[in-house]
């Protein structure tokens, strides 16, 4: 009864213009003051240090090469991802067989696995004794650039497939049919018509894969071949460089700044030029394309894409299950459960990770909702809303270690702010776009007509939100919140940058990174089990997500 009274009160309040403005302003101020401005100012505070880097040519060239490597790997991996992922997406979206549903589910695995699990799994598979590589005697691929490329390929592959399957299923096949009746063989129709129409999805898939590769830190550090002592590595990109030199050094400030500026520039260029980019559709090679449209070619293309998926993506990702299973039988499990030795810290980290993720999710949902409405319904005018939309996405494309570093530069000036709060702020900034993005596009899909109908029937603004928008978007809300949660649990780069080396607040991925890189002595069984527990919890989250979304689909 009290609940209903409160809702009625809120409904009534919401019809006051001042109250609405207050809610929206709080959301915007929150976004600006906690998410957008601190990283910008933070890096600005250390601007003066950057000059030191230019005085040391050796350091400068190392820093520059780390930056080049970061962008080079990101671009290379995203391109390879599209080449390898597009055929698989096509096969999943167009095939009729029932087992494609299973395949579709498996594609998500590398995406939902914590990246530290992926990193360790790939490390085991390709270069540690007992892995696939031990068939060949020695380590097949030693930690270094090739293993990093493989890792980045694996974790960004599901993004491409997921985005492209979605847009292929939405795509109106009538265009393709028109092309066929005009005489185009299947491959020509796909290339000149379907791909051109799907170009926006292709561009956004590319941006997502690119940003993820640029940002990933934890797993990359596992496979980068960091030498004992943590001063040199076989592979050095931006994030590895920052953690090698320490985030407070001038070189780290320089690299963070460059990563942020170049990432935002590339993002802006793709956003502006993407729509103008035209895929080549004029030239047609009828006999050649006809030959490649044949069923033999299609079958072998599907076979190749599935083999790549199985042997490069899926099996190496799941290889960590082996030591995890053996840990159950060899006594590691009982040791873990008793919480002795290194396990005491592990459980603390796990609890810390989940508490931080819960806090971050809760805050972002509450404060992200008005922002999502603001953007989706263009409440501050078209151009300003569009700018908001772009600003909200910035944390998505900025490498998380750079974002974390500049966040800690900023908050470091306020010594009364405890480290744990800075950690939560950093995670909030990184995960904020995930929620607002998915929520604002869900709200956009709710027809304004429905809101107007409810308005004419007498509903106040808050009542409209709670009776129309919320019920119709609750699955996206849930999915967005879970995405924030998993992303926060997984986050390593910003966490490393925020925490001091002696910090008590080691989250689970940071702790596991210590284990893998030998900072803390841990057996393969320990690591396998530690990662296995994290993975099982992640799968539980995935399962909930799938169930909720499926229920939503059935109902809608």
């Amino acid at each position: 009864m009290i609940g209903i009274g409160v809702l009625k009160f809120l409904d009534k309040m919401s019809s006051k213009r001042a109250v609405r403005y207050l809610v929206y302003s709080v959301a915007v101020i929150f976004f600006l003051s906690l998410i957008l401005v601190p990283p910008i100012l933070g890096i600005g505070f250390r601007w003066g240090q950057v000059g030191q880097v230019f005085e040391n040519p050796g350091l400068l060239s190392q820093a520059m090469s780390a930056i080049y490597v970061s962008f080079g790997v990101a671009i290379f991996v995203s391109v390879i991802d599209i080449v390898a992922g597009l055929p698989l997406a096509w096969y999943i979206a167009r095939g009729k067989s029932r087992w494609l549903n299973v395949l579709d589910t498996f594609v998500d695995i590398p995406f939902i696995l914590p990246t530290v699990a992926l990193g360790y799994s790939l490390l085991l598979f390709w270069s540690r004794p007992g892995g696939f590589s031990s068939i060949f005697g020695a380590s097949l691929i030693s930690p270094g650039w090739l293993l990093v490329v493989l890792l980045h390929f694996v974790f960004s592959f599901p993004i491409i497939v997921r985005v492209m399957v979605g847009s292929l299923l939405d795509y109106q096949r009538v265009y393709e049919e028109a092309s066929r009746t005009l005489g185009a063989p299947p491959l020509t129709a796909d290339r000149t018509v379907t791909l051109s129409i799907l170009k926006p999805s292709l561009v956004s898939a590319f941006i997502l894969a690119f940003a993820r590769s640029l940002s990933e830190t934890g797993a990359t550090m596992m496979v980068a071949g960091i030498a004992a002592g943590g001063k040199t590595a076989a592979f050095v990109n931006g994030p590895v460089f920052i953690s090698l030199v320490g985030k407070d050094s001038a070189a780290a400030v320089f690299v963070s700044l460059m990563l942020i500026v170049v990432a935002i520039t590339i993002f802006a260029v793709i956003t502006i030029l993407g729509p103008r980019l035209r895929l080549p559709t004029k030239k047609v090679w009828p006999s050649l394309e006809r030959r490649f449209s044949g069923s033999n070619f299609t079958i072998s293309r599907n076979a190749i894409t599935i083999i790549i998926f199985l042997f490069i993506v899926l099996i190496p990702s799941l290889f960590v299950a082996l030591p995890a299973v053996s840990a159950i039988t060899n006594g590691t499990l009982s040791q873990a459960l008793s919480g002795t030795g290194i396990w005491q810290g592990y459980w603390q980290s796990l609890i810390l990770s989940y508490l931080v993720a819960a806090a971050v999710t809760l805050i972002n949902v509450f404060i992200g909702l008005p922002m999502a409405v603001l953007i989706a319904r263009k409440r501050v005018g078209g151009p300003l809303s569009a700018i908001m939309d772009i600003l909200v996405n910035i944390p998505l494309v900025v490498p998380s270690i750079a974002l974390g570093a500049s966040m800690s530069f900023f908050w470091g000036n306020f010594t009364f702010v405890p480290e744990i709060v800075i950690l939560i702020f950093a995670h909030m900034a990184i995960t904020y776009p995930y929620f607002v993005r998915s929520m604002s596009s869900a709200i956009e899909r709710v027809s304004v007509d429905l809101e107007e109908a409810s308005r004419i029937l007498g509903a106040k603004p808050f009542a409209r939100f709670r009776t129309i928008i919320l019920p119709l978007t609750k699955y996206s809300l849930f999915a967005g919140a879970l995405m924030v949660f998993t992303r926060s649990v997984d986050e390593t780069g910003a966490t490393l940058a925020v925490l001091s080396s002696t910090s008590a607040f080691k989250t689970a991925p940071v702790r596991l990174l210590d284990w893998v890189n030998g900072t803390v002595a841990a057996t393969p069984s320990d690591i396998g089990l530690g990662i296995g527990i994290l993975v099982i919890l992640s799968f539980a989250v995935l399962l909930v997500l799938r169930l909720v979304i499926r229920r939503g689909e059935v109902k809608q």
Partner: protein
Amino acid sequence: MPTVKVENVTKKFGKGKIVAVYNVSLEIKDKEYFSLLGPSGCGKTTLLRLIAGLITPDEGKIYIDGKLVNDVPPEDRGVGFMFQTYALFPHMDVWDNVTYGPRVRALPTQQSDKLGREMLEMVRLYERYKALPRELSGGMMQRVALARALSAGSKLLLLDEPLGALDAKIRLQLRNDIRNLVKDLGLTAIHVTHDQSEAMTMSDRIAVMRKGEIIQVGTPQELYMNPRNIFVANFVGEANFLEGHIESVKDKVAVLELRGNLRVKVLNEGGPRKLEENVVLAVRPEAFLLEKGRKEAVNAMFGSIERVRFEGTNLRYEVRLVNGDLVVVTCPTLSCELMEVGEKVTVSFSPDKSHVFEYPRVGLGQELTAE
């Protein structure tokens, strides 16, 4: 010389649960304008897509020009297809859309340019060649789609509800344009529509479809004059249906007893009928003669006007007969006596302008529902 022959074709969807087209056979002659007419969901679009090769039949054979094409992909069937939504490629301008066919068939540039120009001039849109589809009006998009469908030089044109998305006025205009074009170019056309007046005015022959089957094939006149069953009588044109039974049969004349002991004479067509057999009498609204007061006439039925509606060309009266049945009568506005609601009238019809059908097993109401 495109002829199309469809032989016992069946197509099912949804793991065989939904039968879209069932055991259909058809023959379409060279240079014929042929329509597939039926309510939505009757399988007419599926049949058209089967002929185009966009889907393949589960059973049966399809021949184009006497050649079996079951295994021929759409790009090699040499058909022009116009989609209901036009499906103009949104990322290409008018010129690139219209020359797409020649281009993907690898015609020399010179020839494809010539074709593109000819086609656009034919639909009077050459000056808009640089426009993007979204910059055109519905009628223009429709004409571009037509030009594109014909640009590959196909002699068989398949049209899927080509006028469905247009305004009423433009629709009437384009009916003539399309038919004239098809006739001038000597094409064979198969046109899918749910609009019976569109099918009637455009076609040489029509196949009426229902629930995946072909009910009747004939010229527009044949369908109108001699509908094979209640469904066709109702779907092609309009008809009043009155329930009754056969009271007596003598030579070519049968006497029906309608409700309320109302007796009418009809021609005893379609073989000898059994006495007492339940039947349905169908009379078109325009076949009734409506007069004021009580008049003596063959098949005179009395009643009073219940509702009047002005439809422009016609006046439409709903007359409640003394037996309780309601009939619709139309007559040309300019030559018709104006009557008011409540006026006592006589409705009559000539025996040769009525049709008698067996009473449907599923009941009259069910038989009349379009799906």
